[in-house]
């Protein structure tokens, strides 16, 4: 049985660890979770990304979610924020495309051009 102090210590350790990973992450993947995104399948897209990152033992990428990005007809949307601060937005992302974003974009640093919706 862990004491409250132990739990607090674990929480602090986890917080430091997360902050460190945020700092050193090269890529940031953001899944849009507004109403339209969710209705179009964004939750499965997120699950596919998490699963693929885990399978490939990737440790330099953080995954977050955001709300509506304002392009409802292009949902599900996935943004990849790159080491050079540019952002690639993929549109109409299926779980298969989401896995390819990890295996091609994150692992091989190759943008999947036929699924790019916005680039800036």
């Amino acid at each position, binding site marked *: 049985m862990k004491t409250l102090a132990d739990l607090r210590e674990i929480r602090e350790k986890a917080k430091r660890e997360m902050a460190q990973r945020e700092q050193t992450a090269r890529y940031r993947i953001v899944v849009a979770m507004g109403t339209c995104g969710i209705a179009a399948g964004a939750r499965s897209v997120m699950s596919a990304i998490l699963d693929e990152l885990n399978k490939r033992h990737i440790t330099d990428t953080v995954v977050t979610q955001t709300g*509506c990005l304002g392009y409802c007809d292009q949902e599900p949307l996935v943004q990849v924020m790159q080491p050079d601060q540019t952002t690639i937005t993929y549109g109409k992302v299926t779980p298969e495309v989401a896995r390819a974003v990890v295996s091609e974009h994150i692992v091989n640093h190759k943008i999947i051009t036929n699924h790019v919706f916005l680039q800036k």
Partner: protein
Amino acid sequence: MRELALHILDIVTNSIEAQASRIIIAVDESVRDNRLRIRIKDNGRGMSQELIDRVLDPFVTTRTTRPVGMGLSLLLQAATDCEGGLKISSALGRGTLVDVHFKLNSLNRMPLGEIGATLSNLCIASPDIHFYYRHSTDSGRFVFDSFWLLAQMAARNCMLYTLAGESEQRIREGVLAISSVA
């Protein structure tokens, strides 16, 4: 939407956008009262009375990217289709409570769906937020705290997403053991 768990994801995303740091999700099933109740409570920026009054109208949103909001009005519609209802209580700077209920045995009531995927993804994608899920039924109670994920991560020294499948399964099984709507 085909699942209540997808609506929960949508409503919790409102809380995240409102800068909440603590979000409580409570699901209560009662066969005796023939009622399924879902409450989502956050400590985010809150809503003015004027916004609450307008927000269940599908043509209201505060976002600038498009003219209509629809998450809350969609859920209200789902509730009224099941002889239920939806209430919002909020105070600016304090937080918001969305309280929705359905007639449990209504033919129109959606299944709860993949609540494990909803919660697991939420916790992993927003690790700074404390999520607390409580599910009660006539036969018992299941609780999931996002702190479990952080503790596992710290103890095993792994990435958060290494725990995605495991936490999803843990939640699914915990809910299945007590629930009639999962």
